C-alpha cells in the first residue's frame, strides 16, 4: 500500500499530451456512461485524496480530464485511452499488484471495475472541462504564499487626517481605514490609559501612589509612564509569562520512563528566571533565539557568563517526555522551535507531505536529525550554573539531606542499568528487581524534590549538548522508524532557503539552525514576533493564528503595517522594548475601546484597528491584582517555584502538566503540553465561583477594608471613592455611588446580625458534612484519602483562616471584585 502512491506517481510533473476523446465528440451514450458509471465512482472513491478541491496525494488529480491523463508524480498517465493494461488507474483498482491497490480501504465491486475497464476501452470519454490543478501548480502556490516573501518596508503613506497621526503606525492604520471610509476613535482618558499601560506592560494595576502621581503629572506624563514601566522589573515577569505559554513551560515532565527520570524538572525555574531577566534586559530578539537553541555552543558570542545563559536551553528540554519515547521528544522539540520562532507547523510533516503545506517530510527529518544529534545529561548530571559556596550552612544542610537519598540511588543504580538478560545471568529475581526498582525510583524522586525545593541545592540547568559524532539518519516513511527512506541531511527548510541549500556540518547543527532562524533575511521570524507583541497590546493580531503563518493560515489584515513593524524591529537591533514604546506611543494604541456604530457597520470585528479592544485579563493578572489590592503581594523575584497559597506573583507558581491547578485550568491557563500563542477565552461559572467563594478573594477584601486609610474615612461617599480607586483605578460615577450607597444603606446593621448569620452558616456546613460522612465506613481507603487531602491543600491553599463574618463594606468591596470591570482592561 505504501508503495502504491509512489509507483503511481514518482517524480516530475507534466501534463501529458495524450489525446483522449474530445468532449465535443462524445456521443450521448458515452456521455451517459461516464455520468452514470464513472463520475460517481471517481467522486465517491477517489476525490477525497485526488482532487484539486480536497487533496492532491502524490500529485494526482482525478477531478479533471487533464488530471486523469497527466497522471501523478510517476510521470505516467493514470489512464491510457483504449488500453486498460497500460492504465495505472485500472491496475490500481484491480488490486493485482500488492504494492498498488486503490482505493486503499477496500477493493471496488467487480462490476465497477468492469465498468472502468470498459470506459478505458471506449477511449476514456470524459466531458469534464476546466483547468486541472497539477502538482506543479500546487508547489508554486505554496511558494507564492505571502509569509514566505521577503519583508519589504513599505513607504509610510500620506493620509488625509494628519492630526490623528502620532507616528508611522497611525499613518499605516489610517491609510487602511480611509480606504473603507472609517474614522479612527479618539484618544482615551487618562485613567483608562494608565490602567491599560500598567496591565499591558507589568500585569499589575498602579499602586495608590503611582495612580495619584500619574493622574496629576504634568508634561509628557504618558511617555514618562511608559519609560517607568519598561524599566520596571515587573515588566519581565509579565512578558516572560507570555513566552512561557508559547514554549509549553512546565515544572513537571508528564508521562515518563520511571526508571530513568523523576516526575519533576527540578530546575525548570532557572529557565523561567532566564526569561524574566532577558526581557528585563531587553535582550535583542535574535540573540534570545540563538541562546534558546544553542547556548551551549562555544561559537555563540556572549556578553555575560555562559552560566547565566545555559538555562535558556530549557526552551528545548522542558517539554513533556512521552514516557521516554525519543521520537516523540524530538517531535515536540521540532514543534516548539518551528511554532515559536517561525509560526510554522513543521511537525505536521512527520508522516507525509500535505496538500498545500510548504514543509515536505524530508525537511521534518532534516530537523529531526538536528535534534537526534543533540543529547541531554542523565539524571543527576544536569549542569551546575553557579559557583557553589561549599562552606555555607544551607549548602551543608542540603548535602546532608542529599546523602541519604543518594546512597540508596547509588546502591541500586548498577542493577537498574542492566538489561533483562544480564539480570537473569546474575541471578537477580523478578522480586528482587522489583524491590530495587522501587527503591531506585523513590530515591530518584526524592533527590529531584530536594533539588527543586532546598534553598541550598546548587542552581542547575536542563541543558543539551551535541553528540560526539553527529550523523544523518533516513526519513521514516509515514513516521514509522521501521520503514526508512532517503537520508535527510541536517539543513534549513526548503521553502525558506535559496535554491542551493547548504548543509549543517558542525555538531548537531543547532547553532546553524538558530542562525538561519535569527537571520534578518528570514521572512517569518520578525513578522511572527511583531504579531505576538501586537496581540498582547491589542488583544487581536494581524495574523489570526499566531503560531501558524503557513499556507493554511488566513492572510493578515494590514500586511503593510506588519511588514513595517517587522522592518522596524530588525533595524532597531531586535529591541522588543523599542517596539513596545513605538506601539504604545501611537494614537492607534491610545484610542478608546468603546465601539462606534458607524465604524462597526463597516468593520464589525475591528480588524483594521479603528479602536482599541477590550482585553480580558489572564488568570495571573487577576490573581496578582487581588493580592495587590489586599496589599499583600510579595514582590520578591526569581527562584524555586511556589504554590498558589503563597503571596508571590503567579508566574512563580509551580506549573504541573500532570495536574494543572484547578483554578488555573478554569481561567484558561495555557495548556503546558502545547505551544500556545493565544489562550482561549472562556466564560465559565467556575470562574465566578472562584471569585465568589475562594478564601483568596475574601481574605484580601478583608485586608483592604482593614487598612487605616479606609477605616478613618467618615462618609460613605469617601469610602466608595476609596474602594473604586483601589479596585478599578478610577473614581466612581454618580450612578455607581448611588447603587453602592443603596447597598450599604440597606445592609442590616453589621456585626451582631452578621455574626448570628455566620454562626448559623457554620453549623449548617458542619451538619451537612456529618451527614455526608456518616455512611462512610472505616474501610474507606485511608491512604487514598490522605493523598487527596494533601493534593487539595496544595491546590487551594487550604481553608479560610480568618473566620470572622464579612461586614457590609467588605460585602460591597467583595461585590466590586466580582463585577466585570475587575476582569477587563479597556
Amino acid at each position: 500500500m505504501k508503495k502504491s502512491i509512489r509507483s503511481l506517481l514518482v517524480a516530475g510533473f507534466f501534463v501529458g499530451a495524450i489525446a483522449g476523446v474530445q468532449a465535443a465528440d462524445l456521443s450521448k451514450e458515452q456521455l451517459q456512461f461516464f455520468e452514470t458509471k464513472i463520475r460517481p465512482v471517481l467522486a465517491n472513491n477517489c476525490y477525497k485524496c485526488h482532487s484539486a478541491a480536497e487533496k492532491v496525494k502524490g500529485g494526482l488529480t482525478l477531478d479533471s480530464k487533464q488530471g486523469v491523463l497527466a497522471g501523478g508524480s510517476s510521470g505516467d498517465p493514470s489512464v491510457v485511452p483504449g488500453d486498460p493494461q497500460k492504465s495505472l488507474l485500472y491496475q490500481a483498482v484491480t488490486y493485482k499488484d500488492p504494492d498498488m491497490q486503490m482505493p486503499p480501504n477496500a477493493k471496488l465491486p467487480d462490476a465497477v471495475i468492469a465498468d472502468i475497464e470498459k470506459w478505458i476501452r471506449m477511449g476514456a470519454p470524459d466531458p469534464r472541462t476546466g483547468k486541472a490543478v497539477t502538482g506543479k501548480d500546487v508547489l508554486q502556490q505554496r511558494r507564492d504564499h505571502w509569509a514566505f516573501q521577503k519583508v519589504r518596508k513599505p513607504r509610510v503613506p500620506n493620509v488625509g487626517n494628519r492630526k490623528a497621526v502620532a507616528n508611522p503606525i497611525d499613518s499605516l492604520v489610517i491609510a487602511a481605514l480611509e480606504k473603507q471610509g472609517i474614522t479612527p476613535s479618539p484618544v482615551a482618558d487618562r485613567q483608562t490609559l494608565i490602567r491599560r499601560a500598567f496591565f499591558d506592560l507589568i500585569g499589575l494595576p498602579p499602586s495608590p501612589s503611582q495612580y495619584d502621581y500619574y493622574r496629576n503629572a504634568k508634561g509628557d506624563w504618558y511617555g514618562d509612564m511608559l519609560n517607568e514601566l519598561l524599566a520596571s522589573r515587573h515588566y519581565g515577569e509579565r512578558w516572560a509569562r507570555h513566552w512561557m505559554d508559547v514554549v509549553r513551560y512546565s515544572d513537571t515532565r508528564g508521562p515518563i520512563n520511571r526508571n530513568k527520570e523523576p516526575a519533576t524538572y527540578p530546575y525548570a525555574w532557572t529557565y523561567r528566571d532566564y526569561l524574566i531577566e532577558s526581557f528585563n534586559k531587553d535582550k535583542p530578539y535574535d540573540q534570545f533565539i540563538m541562546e534558546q537553541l544553542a547556548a551551549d555552543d562555544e561559537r555563540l558570542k556572549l556578553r555575560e557568563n555562559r552560566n547565566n545563559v545555559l538555562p535558556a536551553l530549557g526552551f528545548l528540554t522542558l517539554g513533556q517526555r512521552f514516557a521516554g519515547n525519543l521520537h516523540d521528544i524530538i517531535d515536540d522539540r521540532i514543534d516548539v522551535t518551528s511554532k515559536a520562532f517561525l509560526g510554522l507547523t513543521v511537525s505536521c510533516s512527520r508522516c507525509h507531505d500535505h496538500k498545500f503545506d510548504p514543509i515536505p517530510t524530508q525537511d521534518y527529518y532534516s530537523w529531526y536529525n538536528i535534534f537526534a544529534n543533540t543529547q541531554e545529561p542523565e539524571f543527576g548530571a544536569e549542569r551546575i550554573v553557579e559557583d557553589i559556596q561549599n562552606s555555607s550552612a544551607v549548602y551543608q544542610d542540603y548535602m546532608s539531606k542529599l546523602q541519604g537519598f543518594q546512597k540508596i540511588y547509588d546502591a541500586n543504580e548498577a542493577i537498574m542499568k542492566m538489561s533483562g538478560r544480564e539480570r537473569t545471568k546474575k541471578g537477580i529475581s523478578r522480586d528482587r528487581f522489583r524491590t530495587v526498582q522501587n527503591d531506585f525510583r523513590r530515591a530518584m524522586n526524592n533527590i529531584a524534590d530536594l533539588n527543586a525545593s532546598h534553598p541550598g541545592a546548587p542552581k542547575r540547568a536542563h541543558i543539551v549538548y551535541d553528540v560526539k559524532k553527529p550523523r544523518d539518519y533516513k526519513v521514516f516513511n509515514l513516521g514509522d522508524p521501521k520503514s526508512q527512506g532517503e537520508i535527510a541531511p541536517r539543513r534549513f527548510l526548503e521553502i525558506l532557503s535559496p535554491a542551493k541549500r547548504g548543509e549543517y556540518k558542525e555538531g548537531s547543527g543547532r547553532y546553524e539552525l538558530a542562525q538561519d532562524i535569527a537571520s534578518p533575511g528570514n521572512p517569518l521570524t520578525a513578522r511572527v514576533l511583531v504579531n505576538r507583541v501586537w496581540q498582547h497590546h491589542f488583544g487581536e493580531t494581524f495574523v489570526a493564528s499566531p503560531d501558524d503563518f503557513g499556507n493554511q493560515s488566513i492572510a493578515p489584515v494590514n500586511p503593510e503595517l506588519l511588514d513595517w513593524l517587522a522592518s522596524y524591529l530588525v533595524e532597531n537591533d531586535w529591541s522588543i522594548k523599542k517596539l513596545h514604546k513605538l506601539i504604545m506611543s501611537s494614537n492607534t494604541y491610545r484610542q478608546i475601546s468603546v465601539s462606534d456604530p458607524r465604524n462597526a457597520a463597516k468593520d464589525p470585528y475591528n480588524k483594521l484597528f479603528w479602536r482599541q479592544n477590550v482585553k480580558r485579563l489572564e488568570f495571573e493578572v487577576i490573581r496578582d491584582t487581588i493580592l495587590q489590592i489586599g496589599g499583600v503581594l510579595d514582590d520578591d523575584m526569581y527562584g524555586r517555584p511556589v504554590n498558589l497559597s503563597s503571596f508571590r506573583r503567579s508566574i512563580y507558581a509551580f506549573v504541573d502538566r500532570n495536574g494543572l491547578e484547578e483554578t488555573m485550568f478554569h481561567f484558561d491557563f495555557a495548556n503546558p503540553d502545547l505551544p500556545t500563542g493565544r489562550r482561549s477565552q472562556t466564560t465559565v461559572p467556575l470562574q465566578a465561583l472562584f471569585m465568589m467563594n475562594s478564601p483568596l478573594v475574601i481574605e484580601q477584601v478583608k485586608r483592604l477594608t482593614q487598612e487605616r486609610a479606609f477605616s478613618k474615612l467618615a462618609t460613605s461617599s469617601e469610602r466608595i471613592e476609596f474602594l473604586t480607586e483601589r479596585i478599578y483605578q478610577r473614581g466612581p460615577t454618580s450612578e455607581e455611588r448611588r447603587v453602592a450607597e443603596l447597598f450599604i444603606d440597606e445592609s442590616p446593621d453589621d456585626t451582631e446580625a452578621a455574626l448570628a448569620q455566620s454562626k448559623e452558616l457554620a453549623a449548617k456546613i458542619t451538619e451537612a458534612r456529618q451527614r455526608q460522612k456518616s455512611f462512610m465506613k472505616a474501610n474507606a481507603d485511608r491512604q487514598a484519602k490522605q493523598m487527596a487531602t494533601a493534593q487539595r491543600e496544595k491546590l487551594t491553599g487550604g481553608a479560610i483562616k480568618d473566620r470572622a463574618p464579612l461586614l457590609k463594606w467588605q460585602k460591597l468591596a467583595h461585590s466590586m471584585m466580582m463585577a466585570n470591570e475587575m476582569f477587563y482592561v479597556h
Partner: protein
Amino acid sequence: MSAGFGMLGLAGMIGQGARAAGGGLHHPARAKRVIFLFMNGAPSHVDTFDPKPKLRELAGTVPPKDLYRSPSPQSRFMPSPFEFQRHGGSGIEVCETLPRLGAMIDDCCVIRSMHTNVPNHEPGLLMMNTGNIQPIRPSLGSWAIYGLGTENQNLPGYVVLRPSPNIVVGPALWSNSFLPAQYQATSVITSDMAVDKLVANVRNPLLTRGIQSRQVELIQRMNRLHAERRDNDSALEAQIGAMETAFRMQSEAGRTFDIGREPRHIRELYGDSGFGRSCLLARRLVEDGVRFVSVYYVNSGNQPWDTHSRHNKQHPVLCADSDRASAALLADLKQRGMLDDTLVIWGGEFGRTPYSQVAKKGANMENNGRDHHATAFSMLLAGGGIKGGTIYGASDELGMNAVEKPVHPHDLHATVLHLLGIDHERLTYRWSGRDFRLTDIHGRILRDIIA
C-alpha cells in the same frame, strides 16, 4: 477578544443550534449521556467475559510464539480457576466472579474482539481515552461535549470521578487539549464525599445565601452600568450571565454532588467502596444533566487491575467490588427509566495474557500473574441504544487474538459518537493548520450492536 468569543459562538452553534431531531448533532441520538467505567490496569478478558475452556486442556503448556509476541520462557497457559455461567434469556456466559453483571447481561452487549496498538499502559490508556497513543489529544468526553454542548448550564458537562489522585498518565486521559476550555473535564477526587471537598469553592464559608443573592443583584447592577458605558460590548454580555449561573450552581451542585441524600438501601446497593460511591455519584450527575462521566477505578494503587502477580487472588476481589457497583448502576438507571438513553461502558485499556507471568522461578503457582495483552480483550456496553443480550466478535479459542470482527478503540469511539447523534467523520476541530478528529482517519461504526 472576538476570537475567543467567536469560538464560543461557534461552540454555541454546534452545541445548541444545529441539532438534528432527537437531540443529536448530525442525526437522531440514541444516547443522551455516557458513563465510562474504566478499570485501570486492564482486567483479564479470560476471567470476565470471554470463557476459554480450551485453556483448561492446554493448562501448563508453553504458548506457541506464532500466536502472540514472545512470552517469557516460564510462561504457561493458565485457565481461569472460575466457572462461567450462562445468564438471562440470551444465555451469555459470564464469569462467576461477576454474578450481578451476569444478571444484567440481557441489557448488555459483550464485545469479545477488542484489540489495541500497544500492550503498555500509557499508550493503551491514551488510545482508549483519546484515540491516540501519544499525549496530548482531546478526550472522548471532551469531543462529546464539543459536539453536544451541556444539557444543564448549572453543572459542568463532563465530569471525571476517581477515588484517588493516583492514576497512571493522569489528566491527559481527560484533556480537552486544543479544544477550548469549556470542553474541559471537571475532575473530582471522591475519597471524601463531603460536597465542599468534591467541588472547589462551591460554598461560601462566610456568606449566607440571602446575602449572596443581594450581592449578585448589586453586581448585576454594576455590570449593567459598566456595559452601558461600554456601548453594551457583546464580550461583556457573555460574562454577565456567568455570575448568575455560578450563583445557581452553588445550590444545584451542592444538591447534585451530595450522595448523602440517597437512601440507605441505594447506597448499600452500590457498596461502600471508593468505586461504589463514585458510581452512585455518577448516576446523580447524569440524572441532573451532566453529559459525560468517567469513573476511573483507582485506589491507593494507581492501576489496581494490573495483576502481574497473585492474579487469581487479586482479580476476583477487584471483580467483586466492580461487579457490585457497576451492576447497581445499571439496575438503578434501569429502574429510573434512564438506561434506554444512557450508554454505560465497562472495560480497561487492554486485556491480560491467557498464559501466566511467573512471579518467581519455581514459586507457587498462586503467585503467578497475567501480563499485558493488546491483541484480544473484552468490553461491556449497556443502555443508550445498545442491543442487549448480544455478543459481538470473538477471539480465538485461547483468547490470544481477536479473530472475528475485530474492534479497535477507534471503532468503539466512532460507535459511541454515533449513538450520541454525532458523525465521527464530521466532528472536526481546526488546530495547528489542520482539521483534527477523535478517530483520526479511522473508525468504523459497529452497526450490529445498535438496537
